[in-house]
Structures are given as C-alpha cells and as structure tokens.
C-alpha cells in the first residue's frame, strides 16, 4: 500500500465533515431530487420505445409518441435530466469535502439547479413537439441548450472559486477526475452546440465533431465524475487507502487521452477522412488500459475487504458500477476493431453498450454515491432496506438481461446485415425475440428506478419509523472509517 498522502481521501473529524456537508445540502438535494424525477421519466420513455420496437402499433399514429421521438426523449432526459445533475450533485459535495471549504453563496447553486431543470424541461418538450435536432446526445433544440449552458457556467464558476480557496495539501485522485470532468463538460457542450446547433458548420465537417462529442460525453464527463465518486467512497467505506498511486495516474491520463480521441471509432468507413476513423480505432482499442488500471487498482484496494458489500448499499452499488465500467471499456475496445465493427456496427449491440455504459456503470455508481451522501446531508437514515435491496437486484438483473440480449441479438442481426445472402427482412425477424426480452429488461429497470424514487421520497418526507435501526441491507459486520449515520 502506498504511503503517499494523496492516496488518503481526507483526515477530517466528523464535526468538520458535518459542517462541510451542511453547507452544500440545499443545492445537492435539489440536484439529486430532480435527477431522480428525470430518471423515472426517461426510463418510462425507454420502456415505451422498447415496446414500440416489438409492437409498432403500440401508441401508433400519434406525433408525440412516435418511436423517433420517444427514444430520443429517453436518451436525452437520462443524459441531461438524470446523469448530468447527478454528476453535478456528486461533484459539488466532493469538491466541498476534498477542498475542505464550506460552501459560500449556495443560493447561486440552487438557482443554477432550477435553471438547469427549466432547460431540460424545455428541451424535452421541444423534442416532443418536433424540434429534435437529430444529433446524437444533443437532440435538445438550440433554445434549450442556451439555458443549460448558462446553468453550468454558474456551477463551473463556483467550482473554480472553491478550488482556489482549498486548504493546502496534495490533490487527491478524486480531485483530478473532478477537475477533468468539470472542465471537459462545458468545453464539449459549448463546442458541439455552437458548431452543430446554434450556428452549424457545413454538414461535411459535422460527423467528426458529433462523434467527438458523443464519445466525450461519456468518457470525459460522466466516467470521470463516476470515478471521482468511486475513488472517494470505496476507500472511505472500507477504511483503507487507494492501493497504488501510479495506477491511479495511469488510469487518469490514459482515460483523458484515449477517451478524448476514441469517439470517431463509431464512424469506421463513414464519410470522414480515413485517418480520423483510424485514430478513433487506435484510441478505442487503447481504452483497455484505463479499464485494466481501474480494475487492478480498486481490486487490490478492496482485496480482503469486500465484506461490507453485503450491508452497505453505497459500496455494493459503487463496486457493481465500477465493474460494469470496466466491462464497458473492454467492450468498447473490442468493438473498435474494424473486423468486429464491420459486423456489429448499426446493430442492437450499440444499444446494449449504451445501456451498459449509461445505466450499468455511471448510474450504478451514482446510486451508490447518493446512498452514501444523502443521509449525511439530511441527518436522516434511509427508510427501507427492503426497497434498497429491490432497487439493487432489479437494476442489476435489468442491466445484465438487457445487455446480454442486445449483444446476442445484435450479433445475429449484425451477421444478417453483413451477409450478402440474407435479406433485410430476415435480419429483423432474427432479432425480434431478443428485442422482446430487451423490453422485459426495460420493465425491470423502470421497477428499479421506481424503488429508488420511493426510497428517496421516504427519506425526504421522513417516512421511516422512528427508533428503527439504519437501513443496511444485511447485518453490519465491520467498522468503516466513518459511521454511516451522521
């Protein structure tokens, strides 16, 4: 184990922690609460879309509910309504804790949260009434993205001020990821909005920019924020320092470099200069490096201390999420090989990888973080361990089922699309049973999100019976560095 001080999350007393937590409570609860609403909203639309793929006559002939709009609404509501605010909430709390600075002017952050949600609402409504831009992960019409960018700039300004006021000391791993994420997102979002939506450049130049944005949105924004949470929560919950400083460095820099360049691997053979696709392929294959570095580092941190997973919801969700992140990048690496890509491209495998990345890894880590953070902000315990358990198992089963059937069905569909002797009709018929199972997985995921929303509502409106024990999933066995109750 490294003795480097930067492997330790922090050395605060519980009183200091409570003061820091209290100072960020209002904006963080606002971001998490609204995020959970959009999570439920987005997954219901995902379910509607999954059903429509199997039975096109479901809600047919109605403009608002046509497949092309419901699927886009679900992706964007989850990306901008759920994932981004959840990442911001985690980022605010971690910044205050790791910089050891009490949050001043929290009202500007509350305002940013409200503005952000107005932007998301306007964007979703815009898609439904027919202003979809048809740019992957940036489907919100231009008039709503201005609002979103304004809200984020308020948050970024606050983060810069807080980082400047931080108490001296080495920067912890989570802080690297926080700085990277909070810096990348506005750059990605402003560039793509300006060049693709607000004042679009000629369409011949757009494919590379759109691929760069869609890849960066996950690899440079959501993944770093998720890892920031994981590198803080895991050591904290089990009371051990991060295993290797050097592996952390490797994971961080390889993610930044290859993550930034890997987006164009989705355009192999597409209308852009061949070198751009080749660079995307090279960087995409190299994503195996951050995958392995994160996996080894966190495994040796946890080695012999996996026990708390049985009782701590935060740890269980976070570790599941990190494992799925490792799988996401491994699959990305395999999928970037041109020989593989010639089969998998345009098939349901892309849907499977999106599900694994956005729900299986980022959302699971965010669930873990929210389970850890909210009791400390509100001074209340989670109301029901039973619901948390349902949430975990429904989400895990939903993701595993969804990803496996989409990958298997996608492989068959991909081979059918590629084979000169097979008609297009056959490719549809082969994949049909897998799409049916994928719709079933979408039901499980809606159930998981519903359980999560209920448990959040129970905490927020204090529905826990007084005097009962904290909501651990099982009997607690080991001591963590920090009591779970405040």
């Amino acid at each position, binding site marked *: 184990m490294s003795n480097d001080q930067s492997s330790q999350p922090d050395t605060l007393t519980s009183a200091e922690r409570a003061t820091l937590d209290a100072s960020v409570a209002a904006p963080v609860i606002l971001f998490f609460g609204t995020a959970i609403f959009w999570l439920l909203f987005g997954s219901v639309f995902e379910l509607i879309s999954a059903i429509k793929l199997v039975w096109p006559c479901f809600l047919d002939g109605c403009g608002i509910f046509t497949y092309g709009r419901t699927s886009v609404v679900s992706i964007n509501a989850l990306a901008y309504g759920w994932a981004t605010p959840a990442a911001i909430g985690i980022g605010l709390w971690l910044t205050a804790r790791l910089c050891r600075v009490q949050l001043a002017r929290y009202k500007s952050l509350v305002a940013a949260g409200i503005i952000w949600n107005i932007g998301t609402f306007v964007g979703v409504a815009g898609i439904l009434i027919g202003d979809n831009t048809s740019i992957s992960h940036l489907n919100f019409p231009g008039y709503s993205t201005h609002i979103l960018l304004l809200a984020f700039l308020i948050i970024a300004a606050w983060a810069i001020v807080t980082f400047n006021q931080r108490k001296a000391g080495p920067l912890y791993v989570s802080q690297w990821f926080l700085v990277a994420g909070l810096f990348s997102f506005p750059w990605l979002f402003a560039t793509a909005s300006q060049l693709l939506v607000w004042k679009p450049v000629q369409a011949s130049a757009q494919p590379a920019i759109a691929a*760069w944005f869609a890849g960066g949105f996950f690899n440079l924004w959501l993944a770093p924020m998720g890892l920031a949470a994981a590198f803080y929560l895991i050591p904290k919950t089990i009371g051990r320092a991060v295993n290797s400083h050097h592996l952390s460095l490797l994971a961080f820099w390889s993610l930044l470099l290859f993550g930034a360049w890997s987006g164009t691997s989705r355009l192999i053979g597409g209308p852009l200069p061949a070198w751009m696709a080749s660079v995307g392929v090279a960087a995409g294959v190299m994503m195996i490096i951050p995958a392995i570095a994160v996996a080894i580092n966190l495994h040796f941190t946890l080695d012999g201390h996996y026990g708390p997973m049985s009782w701590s919801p935060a740890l269980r969700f976070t570790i599941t999420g990190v494992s799925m992140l490792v799988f996401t990048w491994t699959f990305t690496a395999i999928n970037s090989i041109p020989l593989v890509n010639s089969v998998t491209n345009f098939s349901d495998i892309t849907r499977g990888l999106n599900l694994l990345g956005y729900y299986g890894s980022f959302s699971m880590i965010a669930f873990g973080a929210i389970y850890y953070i909210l009791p400390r902000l509100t001074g209340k315990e989670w109301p029901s361990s039973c619901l948390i358990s349902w949430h975990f198992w429904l989400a895990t089963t939903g993701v595993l089922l969804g990803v496996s059937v989409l990958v298997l069905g996608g492989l068959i569909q991909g081979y059918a699309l590629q084979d000169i002797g097979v008609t297009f009709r056959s490719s549809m018929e082969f994949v049909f049973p897998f799409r049916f199972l994928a719709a079933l997985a979408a039901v499980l995921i809606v159930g998981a999100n519903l359980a999560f929303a209920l448990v959040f509502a129970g905490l927020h409106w204090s529905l826990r019976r007084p005097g009962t024990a904290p909501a651990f999933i099982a009997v607690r066995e080991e001591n963590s560095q920090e009591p779970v109750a405040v």
Partner: protein
Amino acid sequence: MNKLTLLFTGILLTFGSAWVGLVAYPVANLGHMQPLPNEETGGVNPPTVSGLAIAGQKVYAANGCMECHTQQVRPDPFSTDIAKQLGKRQTVPRDEIREHTPFLGEYRIGQDLSNYGARQTDVAATHRHLYAPKSVTPWSNMPSYSYLYEYRKIVGQPSAHAVQGLTGSRAPKPGYEIVPTQQAEALVAYLLSLNQNYPLPESPEPTAK
C-alpha cells in the same frame, strides 16, 4: 501530481489535442466544400435540390427518422454495403453539403436511405409507405406517420394532392380522402432527393470483382 497548474496543463493538452484534431481540423478543411461541375449535364455534383426537399430535412430530423435509418454507404472491407446494393460507391463528405445536419445514423433498424431516391421515384408510393407502412410491406415494423396527413370528408372537388392507391383497412371510406400536410410533402420531396448516383473523383465506383 499535487499541483493544480500541472493537472490543468495536462488536461488542456490531452483534451486540446483531440479538439484540434477532431473539431478544428474538420472545420478548417472540410467546412467549405463546393459542388463540382458536371460536364455531361452542365449542372453540378452533388446536384442542387429543391427548396421543398431542403424543408423536408427538418421534418426528417423532427420525427427522429435517424433513430432507425442510416444514410451512409461504407466501402469494402469495412462492410458489404456496396455488394448489398445500398449504393454504388462509398459516401464521402462532399455528398453531405446540401444537408443542414448529416443524418448518418447509428442503427439499421430500418433500411439504409442514402439512395432512396435511386430506388423509388414515385411520390404516391412514398406517401402510401409513410401513411400506412404495413399496407405496402406487410412485415414492416415502421411506425405510421399518419399524423402528417389529414383525413377529411371530400367537399366539392376531391383534392389533387390526395394520397392515391391505398388499399385494405387503411384506405379512406367512400366520400373521404387523405391529404398530405405541407410537412408530409416536404418529407417525401426530401426522401426522393436522396440519390448519390453521380460521380465524385474522391469516391470512385469499385470495379467488379
């Protein structure tokens, strides 16, 4: 790595390198493409399209057609698109210059549409397909775009634009007609304008094996 400045410089370099390569480079080098003169017809390649077809791009985007249909023909050996007759040659950046947004697509839940206009030239058939896909292709899983059409009672003369030739359960009752809205007309014009069967020097047709 304990200094914020060091961290910040590193992020700037890694992130900035990709920004220069994948954003600034295409804007500078691909963002000002011109059509090439076509000596045979005296026109240009890619050909100029009608204003109605340009308006149809917005309808195509609004209804998320891109969620199921790609618009890119990839070359060998990355695909068998050309052998499957999705197009005669690979799609290149110059093919996109009439578009507001390039609808390359990520999924082939439906067929590729890069050359829809080369396969289909009949306006009425395209309207029938959009209004009632299953009446044209019974195994289709395409949703109906009937909300882009007006189902109305014929008053006086029947409309000259009414969709003709619908059969089966989706055919209008006697005395009624189905009239495309402006959006449906624009979408059909756009779909029929999709045709990459013109020569471009940077994308030669592969010779037969």
